[in-house]
């Protein structure tokens, strides 16, 4: 009973639950046995090479495609059985989208607000706030088709938020945007996360994802190959046992002290740094560095070697070295 309660409690904390999801197009298996849980308030980056199954997964989550089998729940609600309720929980920004000619920004927001049967006064109030949030307040009376791509993208995010959804799903929102528009989009998403929204974003621009997201999922050939908090995924892939010691002089002494330690191995020696692989505890590392300093080595710093998302991506998708 207690376990059941705990599981239910854990389930309540999950915004998106995907279990054993399968989708095939004919003989091609687009998504295979995908299981993923995204907690509330996360900014989740969905990455993978072209054809990995990201967009298919996103379309299934958004109710635009039926899976062959599996379970999807948003905010604890079964997405397949409660399509109407799910639409209230979800805001979707597709990778490519069009706008209507001869429709003003304000009318565009009105149109989508009224699709959720919202009152016109309520739509007006919320759309004013959202247009301010996406920095389009001065474009209310502009025709949508006259906006730049970046503005249209931000307007689409505002449109997706008109009904105050719990989950915002963005498929490649930065594709085709100039650097300034990308920065604005990144700031917007971070602001939204700060407001407590759960955001799922698929993107090819890994450096931006690593700056924005707190958790990631990497897909390859229809399967999820790694998922979780970015630090955890990095640690799982690169390990937590690589250390870089930067120093000015005393290389030989430093190497001698390192070799005296039992659970450490020198990987490489550079002009100003020594890279190590180790299996030591933190106090042992501190004692080793302390011994170096006491032995006259001019240590300018030491840090754990961090991997980046691009290296991680290349490694887990099988193309890394």
């Amino acid at each position, binding site marked *: 009973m207690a376990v059941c309660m705990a599981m239910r409690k854990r389930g309540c904390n999950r915004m998106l639950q995907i279990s054993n999801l399968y989708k095939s197009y004919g003989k091609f298996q687009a998504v295979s046995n995908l299981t993923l849980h995204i907690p509330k308030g996360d900014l989740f980056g969905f990455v993978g090479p072209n054809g990995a199954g990201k967009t298919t997964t996103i379309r299934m989550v958004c109710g635009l495609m039926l899976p062959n089998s599996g379970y999807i729940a948003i905010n604890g609600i079964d997405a397949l*059985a409660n399509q109407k309720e799910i639409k209230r929980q979800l805001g979707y920004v597709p990778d490519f989208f069009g706008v*209507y*000619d001869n*429709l003003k920004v304000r009318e565009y927001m009105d149109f989508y607000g009224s699709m*959720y049967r919202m009152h016109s006064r309520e739509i007006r109030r919320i759309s004013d706030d959202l247009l301010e949030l996406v920095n389009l307040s001065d474009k209310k009376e502009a025709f949508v088709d006259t906006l730049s791509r970046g503005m249209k993208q931000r307007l689409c995010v505002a449109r997706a938020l008109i009904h105050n959804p719990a989950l915002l799903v963005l498929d490649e929102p930065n594709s085709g945007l100039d650097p300034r528009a990308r920065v604005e989009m990144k700031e917007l998403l971070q602001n939204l996360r700060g407001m407590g929204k759960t955001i799922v974003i698929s993107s090819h621009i890994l450096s931006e994802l690593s700056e924005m997201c707190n958790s990631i999922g990497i897909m390859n050939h229809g399967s999820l190959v790694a998922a979780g908090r970015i630090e955890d995924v990095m640690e799982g892939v690169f390990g937590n046992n690589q250390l870089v010691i930067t120093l000015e002089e005393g290389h030989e002494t430093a190497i001698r002290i390192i070799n005296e330690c039992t659970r450490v191995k020198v990987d490489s020696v550079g002009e100003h740094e020594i890279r190590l692989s180790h299996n030591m505890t933190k106090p042992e590392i501190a004692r080793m560095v302390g011994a170096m300093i006491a032995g006259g080595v001019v240590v300018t710093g030491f840090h754990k070697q961090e991997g980046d998302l691009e290296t991680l991506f290349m490694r887990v998708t099988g193309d890394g070295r």
Partner: protein
Amino acid sequence: MYLNPIVKKDIMVQSRSMKICWGIFVYELVLALVFFLAMSIIQGNSRYSTGNIYSAMVWLYPVLAITQLIILGLVVPVKTASSISGEKERQTFDIMMTTGMSPISVILGKVMTAIVQGMFFVVASMPVMALPFIIGGMSWAYLFWFLGIALLVSLFSASIGILCSSLCKKSISAVILSYVFYLIFFLGTVVPPVVVAVVAENLRYTLGSIPQPFEVYGDNIYLCLLLNPAVYLAEFFARVMAGESLTNNMGSFAGQTKAQGPIALMTTGYWWFISATILFVGISFLFLYFASKRINPIRGGRRRASHAVKNRH
């Protein structure tokens, strides 16, 4: 009052475009040309007859009404055929499907837009249509009957257009498919009665008489014509203009004796007209239902979900 957002948006967007102005201009121009042509024919005929030219003006009613119904029948499928496929081409369809609107609401919004637009044209032509009533002395009720028929034509042609739009990815394919549907209704429904009539004539020629069941029940094949819009309109105008029914004598081609079965009922009184009206409305809603099923990206999702729940248990 809740107004379907699609109707509100589509009408607002289209009324800002010059297309609607040009559309009404061309519509009125065609009506004016038909009006003057009909007037000149009426005037020409009156020279050789002693009849009153004013009473002949009643013939403007079927001429103008049929012209308008033909225009509606041709234009409405073109406009509606791009309603769903146009959203797909514009890449706004996916967004629409993730909003709070159900597929049937989307379809009803599209069909209502088409009907409202059709009615723009019909209402704009009311002053011209009123002439036979003012000068020719027709009953005003027929004007409202015409509005009803125009509404039915708009609904029927819009439902064909929307169904085709949901079936095709490209608008142009949807337009072509809509006209194929028209062909099926206009010509396809004529084929079975013609085949039966030809077979009956051949049997009569070769055997000397038609076998009993074929003679008695063969006439029921004429029920196919209930689905023929041309027969429906012909029946309507025959009743309005001549006070007679075209369908009351139906079935006398194949058999010498009075037909039995449903055809016997349908060809008495107003039954043909009533049944055909109900059929066309029913078919329209059936088409709209199929279109809504067709555009639902996760049709059958609830059923699959319940299967999944059973499997989990």
